Protein backbone atom coordinates (compact mmCIF):
# COMPACT_ATOMS: atom_id res chain seq x y z
CA UNK A 1 0.00 0.00 0.00
CA UNK A 2 1.04 3.57 -0.58
CA UNK A 3 1.91 5.62 2.45
CA UNK A 4 -0.80 8.04 3.61
CA UNK A 5 0.05 11.23 1.76
CA UNK A 6 -2.05 13.52 3.87
CA UNK A 7 -3.99 13.26 7.03
CA UNK A 8 -7.72 12.93 6.56
CA UNK A 9 -8.83 12.53 10.11
CA UNK A 10 -7.18 13.40 13.40
CA UNK A 11 -8.61 12.01 16.59
CA UNK A 12 -6.88 12.98 19.81
CA UNK A 13 -8.10 11.92 23.24
CA UNK A 14 -11.66 11.19 22.18
CA UNK A 15 -14.03 10.45 25.06
CA UNK A 16 -17.70 9.48 24.99
CA UNK A 17 -19.63 9.46 28.25
CA UNK A 18 -23.18 8.34 28.94
CA UNK A 19 -25.07 9.50 32.00
CA UNK A 20 -26.84 6.58 33.69
CA UNK A 21 -28.73 6.10 36.93
CA UNK A 22 -25.57 4.89 38.61
CA UNK A 23 -23.37 7.72 37.36
CA UNK A 24 -21.30 8.44 34.28
CA UNK A 25 -20.27 5.50 32.12
CA UNK A 26 -17.31 6.22 29.92
CA UNK A 27 -17.69 4.13 26.77
CA UNK A 28 -14.69 5.60 24.94
CA UNK A 29 -11.82 6.66 27.16
CA UNK A 30 -9.18 8.63 25.35
CA UNK A 31 -8.83 7.20 21.86
CA UNK A 32 -6.24 8.83 19.61
CA UNK A 33 -5.28 8.05 16.03
CA UNK A 34 -4.75 9.69 12.68
CA UNK A 35 -5.99 8.38 9.39
CA UNK A 36 -4.78 9.00 5.88
CA UNK A 37 -6.18 7.49 2.72
CA UNK A 38 -5.76 3.98 4.04
CA UNK A 39 -7.68 1.11 5.55
CA UNK A 40 -7.75 1.16 9.30
CA UNK A 41 -9.35 -1.65 11.30
CA UNK A 42 -10.78 -1.22 14.77
CA UNK A 43 -11.23 -4.52 16.58
CA UNK A 44 -12.71 -5.29 19.94
CA UNK A 45 -15.41 -7.21 21.74
CA UNK A 46 -18.90 -5.95 22.39
CA UNK A 47 -18.72 -3.07 24.81
CA UNK A 48 -15.16 -2.14 23.92
CA UNK A 49 -16.24 1.23 22.50
CA UNK A 50 -15.37 0.50 18.87
CA UNK A 51 -18.79 1.40 17.49
CA UNK A 52 -19.11 4.48 19.70
CA UNK A 53 -15.78 5.69 18.33
CA UNK A 54 -17.16 5.43 14.81
CA UNK A 55 -20.42 7.09 15.75
CA UNK A 56 -18.68 9.97 17.50
CA UNK A 57 -16.70 10.69 14.33
CA UNK A 58 -19.93 10.65 12.32
CA UNK A 59 -21.71 12.78 14.89
CA UNK A 60 -24.35 10.13 15.52
CA UNK A 61 -23.87 9.82 19.26
CA UNK A 62 -27.18 9.94 21.19
CA UNK A 63 -27.94 13.44 22.42
CA UNK A 64 -27.67 12.64 26.13
CA UNK A 65 -24.06 11.52 25.72
CA UNK A 66 -21.08 13.86 26.07
CA UNK A 67 -18.41 13.76 23.41
CA UNK A 68 -15.11 15.49 24.19
CA UNK A 69 -11.72 15.44 22.55
CA UNK A 70 -8.56 17.52 22.41
CA UNK A 71 -8.80 17.35 18.63
CA UNK A 72 -11.41 15.87 16.34
CA UNK A 73 -10.50 17.19 12.94
CA UNK A 74 -11.68 16.06 9.52
CA UNK A 75 -9.50 17.53 6.78
CA UNK A 76 -9.17 21.15 7.83
CA UNK A 77 -12.47 21.31 9.73
CA UNK A 78 -12.97 20.96 13.44
CA UNK A 79 -15.86 18.56 13.94
CA UNK A 80 -16.49 19.46 17.58
CA UNK A 81 -17.11 23.17 17.14
CA UNK A 82 -18.90 22.84 13.82
CA UNK A 83 -22.60 23.77 13.85
CA UNK A 84 -25.02 20.86 13.54
CA UNK A 85 -26.21 22.09 10.15
CA UNK A 86 -22.70 22.01 8.67
CA UNK A 87 -22.11 18.63 10.16
CA UNK A 88 -25.27 17.37 8.50
CA UNK A 89 -24.00 18.61 5.15
CA UNK A 90 -20.77 16.73 5.73
CA UNK A 91 -22.51 13.45 6.56
CA UNK A 92 -23.35 11.50 3.46
CA UNK A 93 -21.33 13.85 1.30
CA UNK A 94 -17.79 13.57 2.60
CA UNK A 95 -18.23 11.21 5.55
CA UNK A 96 -20.29 8.05 5.14
CA UNK A 97 -21.13 5.05 7.26
CA UNK A 98 -22.19 1.49 6.46
CA UNK A 99 -24.09 -0.28 9.20
CA UNK A 100 -24.28 -3.92 10.11
CA UNK A 101 -27.64 -5.16 8.98
CA UNK A 102 -29.29 -3.92 5.76
CA UNK A 103 -32.62 -5.26 7.05
CA UNK A 104 -32.70 -2.57 9.72
CA UNK A 105 -30.79 0.26 8.13
CA UNK A 106 -32.58 0.63 4.79
CA UNK A 107 -35.93 2.41 4.73
CA UNK A 108 -38.55 -0.34 4.34
CA UNK A 109 -41.18 1.84 2.63
CA UNK A 110 -38.97 3.34 -0.09
CA UNK A 111 -37.60 1.54 -3.10
CA UNK A 112 -33.85 1.07 -3.14
CA UNK A 113 -33.46 3.40 -6.10
CA UNK A 114 -35.44 6.21 -4.48
CA UNK A 115 -33.38 5.98 -1.30
CA UNK A 116 -30.15 6.36 -3.20
CA UNK A 117 -31.56 9.22 -5.28
CA UNK A 118 -32.59 10.92 -2.04
CA UNK A 119 -29.00 10.84 -0.78
CA UNK A 120 -27.76 12.29 -4.03
CA UNK A 121 -30.36 15.05 -4.17
CA UNK A 122 -29.73 16.08 -0.58
CA UNK A 123 -26.15 16.92 -1.38
CA UNK A 124 -26.13 17.95 -5.02
CA UNK A 125 -28.49 20.01 -7.14
CA UNK A 126 -29.10 17.52 -9.84
CA UNK A 127 -31.92 16.71 -12.24
CA UNK A 128 -34.11 13.64 -12.00
CA UNK A 129 -32.87 11.80 -15.04
CA UNK A 130 -29.25 12.54 -14.26
CA UNK A 131 -29.73 11.30 -10.69
CA UNK A 132 -31.25 8.11 -12.03
CA UNK A 133 -28.34 7.55 -14.40
CA UNK A 134 -25.81 8.11 -11.61
CA UNK A 135 -27.63 5.72 -9.27
CA UNK A 136 -27.87 3.02 -11.92
CA UNK A 137 -24.15 3.39 -12.60
CA UNK A 138 -23.46 3.12 -8.89
CA UNK A 139 -25.60 -0.01 -8.56
CA UNK A 140 -23.62 -1.47 -11.41
CA UNK A 141 -20.38 -0.55 -9.66
CA UNK A 142 -21.40 -2.67 -6.65
CA UNK A 143 -21.86 -5.57 -9.07
CA UNK A 144 -25.62 -5.75 -9.11
CA UNK A 145 -26.17 -7.45 -12.43
CA UNK A 146 -29.61 -6.03 -13.19
CA UNK A 147 -29.60 -2.47 -11.78
CA UNK A 148 -32.81 -1.40 -13.55
CA UNK A 149 -34.76 -4.12 -11.77
CA UNK A 150 -33.15 -3.60 -8.35
CA UNK A 151 -33.78 0.16 -8.58
CA UNK A 152 -37.51 -0.43 -8.23
CA UNK A 153 -37.36 -3.11 -5.55
CA UNK A 154 -38.13 -2.60 -1.86
CA UNK A 155 -35.52 -3.69 0.69
CA UNK A 156 -37.57 -6.73 1.80
CA UNK A 157 -37.51 -8.03 -1.76
CA UNK A 158 -33.74 -8.46 -1.90
CA UNK A 159 -31.32 -10.78 -0.12
CA UNK A 160 -28.98 -9.65 2.66
CA UNK A 161 -25.98 -9.54 0.37
CA UNK A 162 -27.89 -7.52 -2.22
CA UNK A 163 -29.18 -5.15 0.48
CA UNK A 164 -25.67 -4.57 1.76
CA UNK A 165 -24.48 -3.81 -1.79
CA UNK A 166 -27.32 -1.30 -2.15
CA UNK A 167 -26.20 0.26 1.12
CA UNK A 168 -22.61 0.51 -0.11
CA UNK A 169 -23.93 2.10 -3.32
CA UNK A 170 -25.92 4.63 -1.29
CA UNK A 171 -22.92 5.55 0.83
CA UNK A 172 -20.52 5.89 -2.07
CA UNK A 173 -22.76 7.66 -4.56
CA UNK A 174 -21.69 11.12 -3.39
CA UNK A 175 -18.02 10.14 -3.45
CA UNK A 176 -17.09 10.56 0.23
CA UNK A 177 -13.51 10.99 1.43
CA UNK A 178 -13.94 8.81 4.47
CA UNK A 179 -16.05 5.70 4.86
CA UNK A 180 -16.78 4.14 8.23
CA UNK A 181 -17.96 0.54 7.97
CA UNK A 182 -19.39 -0.79 11.22
CA UNK A 183 -19.47 -4.59 11.00
CA UNK A 184 -20.51 -4.40 7.33
CA UNK A 185 -20.53 -8.13 6.75
CA UNK A 186 -21.39 -9.70 10.11
CA UNK A 187 -25.01 -10.31 9.14
CA UNK A 188 -24.07 -12.01 5.88
CA UNK A 189 -23.24 -15.58 4.97
CA UNK A 190 -19.54 -16.39 4.79
CA UNK A 191 -19.34 -16.77 1.02
CA UNK A 192 -21.37 -13.60 0.43
CA UNK A 193 -19.17 -11.81 2.98
CA UNK A 194 -16.15 -12.17 0.75
CA UNK A 195 -17.99 -10.86 -2.33
CA UNK A 196 -19.13 -7.76 -0.45
CA UNK A 197 -15.66 -7.17 0.98
CA UNK A 198 -14.20 -7.57 -2.47
CA UNK A 199 -16.52 -4.87 -3.86
CA UNK A 200 -15.79 -2.59 -0.92
CA UNK A 201 -12.07 -3.11 -1.32
CA UNK A 202 -12.06 -2.30 -5.04
CA UNK A 203 -14.18 0.84 -4.65
CA UNK A 204 -12.17 2.13 -1.72
CA UNK A 205 -8.87 1.73 -3.52
CA UNK A 206 -10.17 3.03 -6.87
CA UNK A 207 -11.58 6.15 -5.32
CA UNK A 208 -8.75 6.69 -2.88
CA UNK A 209 -10.97 6.87 0.16
CA UNK A 210 -10.01 6.48 3.77
CA UNK A 211 -11.74 3.54 5.42
CA UNK A 212 -12.38 2.72 9.06
CA UNK A 213 -13.44 -0.90 9.32
CA UNK A 214 -15.01 -1.75 12.66
CA UNK A 215 -15.35 -5.44 13.50
CA UNK A 216 -15.11 -8.02 16.24
CA UNK A 217 -13.43 -10.44 13.86
CA UNK A 218 -9.69 -10.00 14.27
CA UNK A 219 -8.81 -12.50 11.58
CA UNK A 220 -11.04 -10.86 8.99
CA UNK A 221 -9.81 -7.36 9.81
CA UNK A 222 -6.18 -8.37 9.63
CA UNK A 223 -6.64 -9.76 6.13
CA UNK A 224 -8.55 -6.69 4.94
CA UNK A 225 -6.89 -3.65 6.52
CA UNK A 226 -3.45 -2.07 6.49
CA UNK A 227 -3.39 -1.14 10.14
CA UNK A 228 -5.35 -2.44 13.13
CA UNK A 229 -6.28 -0.77 16.41
CA UNK A 230 -7.25 -3.20 19.15
CA UNK A 231 -9.68 -1.76 21.67
CA UNK A 232 -10.49 -2.98 25.15
CA UNK A 233 -12.77 -1.26 27.66
CA UNK A 234 -12.86 2.03 25.77
CA UNK A 235 -9.13 2.30 25.13
CA UNK A 236 -6.76 1.39 22.35
CA UNK A 237 -4.55 -1.26 23.91
CA UNK A 238 -2.45 -1.94 20.85
CA UNK A 239 -1.81 -0.65 17.35
CA UNK A 240 -0.41 -3.04 14.80
CA UNK A 241 0.26 -3.22 11.13
CA UNK A 242 -1.97 -5.98 9.82
CA UNK A 243 0.94 -7.97 8.44
CA UNK A 244 2.55 -8.19 11.88
CA UNK A 245 -0.54 -9.38 13.68
CA UNK A 246 1.22 -12.43 14.98
CA UNK A 247 3.83 -10.28 16.71
CA UNK A 248 1.10 -8.80 18.90
CA UNK A 249 2.54 -7.83 22.28
CA UNK A 250 -0.54 -7.14 24.34
CA UNK A 251 -1.93 -10.24 26.11
CA UNK A 252 -5.46 -9.22 25.11
CA UNK A 253 -4.61 -9.24 21.38
CA UNK A 254 -2.78 -12.53 21.78
CA UNK A 255 -5.76 -13.94 23.67
CA UNK A 256 -8.19 -12.86 20.96
CA UNK A 257 -6.04 -14.54 18.32
CA UNK A 258 -5.60 -17.72 20.31
CA UNK A 259 -9.19 -18.35 21.29
CA UNK A 260 -10.40 -18.85 17.72
CA UNK A 261 -10.91 -22.48 16.75
CA UNK A 262 -8.92 -23.36 13.64
CA UNK A 263 -9.28 -26.06 11.06
CA UNK A 264 -6.66 -28.65 11.90
CA UNK A 265 -5.89 -26.77 15.12
CA UNK A 266 -6.60 -29.65 17.47
CA UNK A 267 -6.32 -27.69 20.70
CA UNK A 268 -8.59 -29.10 23.39
CA UNK A 269 -9.66 -27.23 25.41
CA UNK A 270 -9.34 -23.93 23.57
CA UNK A 271 -7.22 -21.33 25.35
CA UNK A 272 -9.51 -18.90 27.12
CA UNK A 273 -8.94 -15.19 27.42
CA UNK A 274 -8.15 -14.22 30.97
CA UNK A 275 -9.01 -10.60 31.55
CA UNK A 276 -6.70 -8.72 33.83
CA UNK A 277 -8.01 -5.70 35.72
CA UNK A 278 -4.87 -3.69 34.91
CA UNK A 279 -5.79 -3.69 31.18
CA UNK A 280 -8.60 -1.26 31.88
CA UNK A 281 -6.35 1.24 33.67
Amino acid at each position, binding site marked *: MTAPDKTLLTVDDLRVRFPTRTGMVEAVRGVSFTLGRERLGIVGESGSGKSQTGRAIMGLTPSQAQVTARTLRFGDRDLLTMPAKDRRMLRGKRLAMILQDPKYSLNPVMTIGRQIVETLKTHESIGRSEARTRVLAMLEAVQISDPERVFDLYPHEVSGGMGQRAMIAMMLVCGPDLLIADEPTSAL*DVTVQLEVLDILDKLVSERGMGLIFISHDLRLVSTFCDRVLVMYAGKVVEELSAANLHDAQHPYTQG*LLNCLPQIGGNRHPLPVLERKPEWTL
Partner: protein
Amino acid sequence: MTTALSIDNMLVLYEDFAALNHVSLDVAQGESFGIVGESGSGKSTLLRAITGLAGFQEGSLTVNGRSYGGRQRDKEFYRTVQMVFQDPYGSLHPRQTVDRLLLEPLIIHGFDNVDARIARALDEVGLGSGFRFRYSHQLSGGQRQRVAIARALIVEPTIMLLDEPTSALDASIQAEILNLLEQARRDRDLTFVMVSHDLGVISHMCERLAVMKTGEVVETVPVEALVKREFSAEYTRQLLVASEGFRRD
Protein backbone atom coordinates in the same frame (compact mmCIF):
# COMPACT_ATOMS: atom_id res chain seq x y z
CA MET B 1 -21.19 -48.96 17.40
CA THR B 2 -24.86 -48.23 17.91
CA THR B 3 -26.74 -45.56 16.04
CA ALA B 4 -28.16 -42.81 18.19
CA LEU B 5 -29.95 -40.93 15.48
CA SER B 6 -30.85 -41.98 12.00
CA ILE B 7 -32.57 -39.95 9.33
CA ASP B 8 -33.55 -41.55 6.08
CA ASN B 9 -34.81 -39.74 3.02
CA MET B 10 -36.41 -36.94 5.01
CA LEU B 11 -38.55 -34.41 3.13
CA VAL B 12 -39.82 -31.22 4.74
CA LEU B 13 -42.16 -29.12 2.62
CA TYR B 14 -43.27 -25.60 3.41
CA GLU B 15 -46.15 -25.34 0.97
CA ASP B 16 -44.36 -26.02 -2.32
CA PHE B 17 -40.88 -25.27 -1.07
CA ALA B 18 -38.68 -28.19 -0.07
CA ALA B 19 -36.73 -26.94 2.94
CA LEU B 20 -35.22 -30.40 3.31
CA ASN B 21 -35.00 -32.38 0.13
CA HIS B 22 -34.62 -36.10 0.86
CA VAL B 23 -31.85 -35.89 3.42
CA SER B 24 -30.29 -38.99 4.96
CA LEU B 25 -27.73 -39.20 7.73
CA ASP B 26 -26.68 -41.39 10.65
CA VAL B 27 -25.12 -40.29 13.89
CA ALA B 28 -23.47 -42.91 16.09
CA GLN B 29 -23.83 -43.10 19.86
CA GLY B 30 -21.31 -40.76 21.48
CA GLU B 31 -20.37 -39.12 18.22
CA SER B 32 -20.15 -35.40 17.62
CA PHE B 33 -21.66 -34.65 14.24
CA GLY B 34 -21.51 -31.25 12.56
CA ILE B 35 -23.74 -29.65 9.97
CA VAL B 36 -22.37 -26.69 8.01
CA GLY B 37 -24.24 -24.49 5.61
CA GLU B 38 -25.39 -20.97 4.92
CA SER B 39 -28.74 -19.40 5.63
CA GLY B 40 -31.51 -21.18 3.80
CA SER B 41 -29.54 -24.40 3.46
CA GLY B 42 -31.95 -26.28 5.71
CA LYS B 43 -29.58 -26.94 8.59
CA SER B 44 -31.87 -25.49 11.25
CA THR B 45 -34.92 -27.10 9.64
CA LEU B 46 -33.17 -30.44 10.03
CA LEU B 47 -32.87 -29.97 13.80
CA ARG B 48 -36.44 -28.70 14.02
CA ALA B 49 -37.69 -31.72 12.11
CA ILE B 50 -35.85 -34.05 14.50
CA THR B 51 -37.46 -32.42 17.53
CA GLY B 52 -40.91 -32.24 15.97
CA LEU B 53 -40.97 -28.44 15.83
CA ALA B 54 -41.38 -28.89 12.09
CA GLY B 55 -43.20 -31.85 10.61
CA PHE B 56 -41.74 -33.96 7.84
CA GLN B 57 -43.83 -35.34 5.00
CA GLU B 58 -41.70 -38.24 3.82
CA GLY B 59 -38.90 -40.38 5.12
CA SER B 60 -38.18 -41.82 8.54
CA LEU B 61 -36.54 -40.78 11.78
CA THR B 62 -35.12 -43.17 14.35
CA VAL B 63 -33.83 -41.95 17.69
CA ASN B 64 -32.30 -44.40 20.18
CA GLY B 65 -33.97 -47.29 18.40
CA ARG B 66 -37.47 -45.82 18.31
CA SER B 67 -38.98 -44.44 15.18
CA TYR B 68 -40.94 -41.22 15.04
CA GLY B 69 -43.01 -39.55 12.35
CA GLY B 70 -44.52 -36.15 11.67
CA ARG B 71 -44.59 -33.99 14.79
CA GLN B 72 -45.54 -36.55 17.44
CA ARG B 73 -42.88 -37.27 20.07
CA ASP B 74 -43.21 -39.15 23.35
CA LYS B 75 -42.11 -37.92 26.76
CA GLU B 76 -39.00 -40.07 26.76
CA PHE B 77 -37.90 -38.31 23.57
CA TYR B 78 -38.30 -34.90 25.14
CA ARG B 79 -36.05 -35.92 28.01
CA THR B 80 -33.31 -37.69 26.08
CA VAL B 81 -33.08 -35.15 23.27
CA GLN B 82 -32.37 -31.57 24.27
CA MET B 83 -31.73 -28.52 22.16
CA VAL B 84 -29.69 -25.34 22.67
CA PHE B 85 -30.71 -22.43 20.47
CA GLN B 86 -28.71 -19.71 18.78
CA ASP B 87 -29.99 -16.61 20.47
CA PRO B 88 -29.53 -16.66 24.22
CA TYR B 89 -31.56 -13.43 24.40
CA GLY B 90 -34.61 -15.04 22.85
CA SER B 91 -34.55 -18.52 24.30
CA LEU B 92 -34.92 -17.79 28.02
CA HIS B 93 -38.21 -16.68 29.54
CA PRO B 94 -37.77 -13.00 30.45
CA ARG B 95 -40.04 -13.14 33.51
CA GLN B 96 -38.66 -16.28 35.09
CA THR B 97 -35.63 -16.46 37.37
CA VAL B 98 -32.84 -18.89 36.54
CA ASP B 99 -34.14 -21.07 39.38
CA ARG B 100 -37.61 -21.24 37.83
CA LEU B 101 -36.17 -21.86 34.33
CA LEU B 102 -34.26 -24.87 35.60
CA LEU B 103 -37.08 -26.13 37.81
CA GLU B 104 -39.64 -26.45 35.02
CA PRO B 105 -38.02 -29.32 33.07
CA LEU B 106 -37.39 -31.16 36.36
CA ILE B 107 -41.07 -30.97 37.31
CA ILE B 108 -42.24 -31.97 33.83
CA HIS B 109 -40.09 -35.07 33.86
CA GLY B 110 -40.78 -35.95 37.50
CA PHE B 111 -37.29 -35.65 38.91
CA ASP B 112 -36.76 -35.75 42.67
CA ASN B 113 -34.20 -33.84 44.70
CA VAL B 114 -34.74 -30.73 42.59
CA ASP B 115 -32.85 -28.35 44.85
CA ALA B 116 -29.60 -30.27 44.70
CA ARG B 117 -30.00 -30.84 40.95
CA ILE B 118 -30.37 -27.14 40.21
CA ALA B 119 -27.35 -26.27 42.33
CA ARG B 120 -25.30 -28.96 40.63
CA ALA B 121 -26.40 -27.90 37.15
CA LEU B 122 -25.36 -24.32 37.79
CA ASP B 123 -22.01 -25.46 39.13
CA GLU B 124 -21.46 -27.64 36.10
CA VAL B 125 -21.84 -24.73 33.68
CA GLY B 126 -19.57 -22.52 35.76
CA LEU B 127 -22.23 -20.26 37.25
CA GLY B 128 -22.20 -20.17 41.01
CA SER B 129 -25.29 -20.24 43.22
CA GLY B 130 -25.20 -16.42 43.11
CA PHE B 131 -26.90 -16.58 39.72
CA ARG B 132 -29.75 -18.77 40.86
CA PHE B 133 -32.30 -16.09 41.62
CA ARG B 134 -31.46 -13.67 38.85
CA TYR B 135 -33.54 -12.88 35.79
CA SER B 136 -32.10 -13.46 32.35
CA HIS B 137 -31.87 -9.73 31.60
CA GLN B 138 -29.40 -9.46 34.47
CA LEU B 139 -27.00 -11.81 32.69
CA SER B 140 -24.56 -11.32 29.84
CA GLY B 141 -24.91 -13.22 26.57
CA GLY B 142 -22.35 -15.84 27.58
CA GLN B 143 -23.97 -16.35 30.98
CA ARG B 144 -27.39 -16.77 29.35
CA GLN B 145 -26.04 -19.40 27.02
CA ARG B 146 -24.63 -21.19 30.07
CA VAL B 147 -28.10 -21.16 31.62
CA ALA B 148 -29.55 -22.55 28.38
CA ILE B 149 -26.96 -25.34 28.46
CA ALA B 150 -27.72 -26.03 32.13
CA ARG B 151 -31.42 -26.26 31.30
CA ALA B 152 -30.64 -28.82 28.60
CA LEU B 153 -28.27 -30.89 30.75
CA ILE B 154 -30.43 -30.93 33.88
CA VAL B 155 -32.78 -33.64 32.57
CA GLU B 156 -29.81 -35.89 31.78
CA PRO B 157 -30.23 -36.18 28.02
CA THR B 158 -28.22 -38.48 25.77
CA ILE B 159 -28.46 -36.39 22.61
CA MET B 160 -27.87 -32.65 22.36
CA LEU B 161 -28.95 -30.66 19.33
CA LEU B 162 -26.94 -27.44 19.15
CA ASP B 163 -28.21 -24.79 16.76
CA GLU B 164 -25.42 -22.22 16.31
CA PRO B 165 -24.80 -22.11 20.07
CA THR B 166 -22.00 -19.54 19.87
CA SER B 167 -22.66 -17.40 16.81
CA ALA B 168 -24.25 -14.59 18.85
CA LEU B 169 -21.25 -14.41 21.19
CA ASP B 170 -17.87 -12.69 21.16
CA ALA B 171 -14.90 -14.81 20.09
CA SER B 172 -13.46 -15.05 23.60
CA ILE B 173 -16.82 -16.06 25.09
CA GLN B 174 -17.28 -18.54 22.25
CA ALA B 175 -14.11 -20.36 23.34
CA GLU B 176 -15.46 -20.68 26.90
CA ILE B 177 -18.82 -22.07 25.74
CA LEU B 178 -17.18 -24.54 23.32
CA ASN B 179 -14.92 -25.77 26.13
CA LEU B 180 -17.93 -26.15 28.40
CA LEU B 181 -19.83 -28.18 25.78
CA GLU B 182 -16.83 -30.45 25.17
CA GLN B 183 -16.41 -31.03 28.88
CA ALA B 184 -20.11 -31.91 29.25
CA ARG B 185 -19.89 -34.33 26.34
CA ARG B 186 -16.86 -36.07 27.85
CA ASP B 187 -18.37 -36.29 31.33
CA ARG B 188 -21.78 -37.55 30.23
CA ASP B 189 -20.91 -39.42 27.04
CA LEU B 190 -23.34 -37.31 25.03
CA THR B 191 -24.10 -37.41 21.34
CA PHE B 192 -23.88 -33.99 19.69
CA VAL B 193 -25.49 -32.75 16.51
CA MET B 194 -24.09 -29.28 16.04
CA VAL B 195 -25.18 -26.80 13.41
CA SER B 196 -22.98 -23.85 12.47
CA HIS B 197 -22.00 -21.66 9.56
CA ASP B 198 -18.44 -21.53 10.92
CA LEU B 199 -16.24 -24.33 9.61
CA GLY B 200 -13.62 -23.53 12.25
CA VAL B 201 -16.08 -24.19 15.08
CA ILE B 202 -17.40 -27.39 13.49
CA SER B 203 -13.94 -28.76 12.80
CA HIS B 204 -12.97 -28.04 16.41
CA MET B 205 -16.02 -29.70 17.94
CA CYS B 206 -16.95 -32.54 15.60
CA GLU B 207 -15.58 -35.77 14.18
CA ARG B 208 -17.70 -35.86 11.07
CA LEU B 209 -19.64 -33.20 9.25
CA ALA B 210 -22.27 -32.81 6.58
CA VAL B 211 -22.18 -29.84 4.23
CA MET B 212 -25.65 -28.61 3.32
CA LYS B 213 -26.87 -26.39 0.51
CA THR B 214 -30.41 -25.55 -0.60
CA GLY B 215 -32.00 -28.28 1.47
CA GLU B 216 -29.67 -31.06 0.42
CA VAL B 217 -26.61 -32.67 1.91
CA VAL B 218 -23.80 -31.90 -0.52
CA GLU B 219 -21.40 -34.30 1.14
CA THR B 220 -20.52 -35.96 4.42
CA VAL B 221 -16.83 -36.08 5.33
CA PRO B 222 -14.66 -36.75 8.38
CA VAL B 223 -13.03 -33.61 9.79
CA GLU B 224 -9.54 -34.82 8.85
CA ALA B 225 -10.60 -34.55 5.22
CA LEU B 226 -10.95 -30.79 5.65
CA VAL B 227 -7.40 -30.52 6.93
CA LYS B 228 -6.03 -32.66 4.13
CA ARG B 229 -8.44 -31.04 1.66
CA GLU B 230 -9.76 -34.42 0.58
CA PHE B 231 -13.30 -33.52 -0.36
CA SER B 232 -15.09 -33.51 -3.66
CA ALA B 233 -17.73 -30.78 -3.59
CA GLU B 234 -16.90 -27.35 -4.96
CA TYR B 235 -19.18 -25.79 -2.37
CA THR B 236 -17.14 -27.25 0.50
CA ARG B 237 -14.05 -25.68 -1.01
CA GLN B 238 -15.82 -22.30 -1.21
CA LEU B 239 -16.76 -22.49 2.46
CA LEU B 240 -13.22 -23.45 3.39
CA VAL B 241 -11.74 -20.54 1.44
CA ALA B 242 -14.25 -18.16 3.01
CA SER B 243 -13.30 -19.31 6.50
CA GLU B 244 -9.68 -18.30 5.92
CA GLY B 245 -10.53 -14.61 5.61
CA PHE B 246 -10.25 -12.03 2.89
CA ARG B 247 -7.69 -12.37 0.16
CA ARG B 248 -6.71 -9.61 -2.23
CA ASP B 249 -5.94 -10.85 -5.70
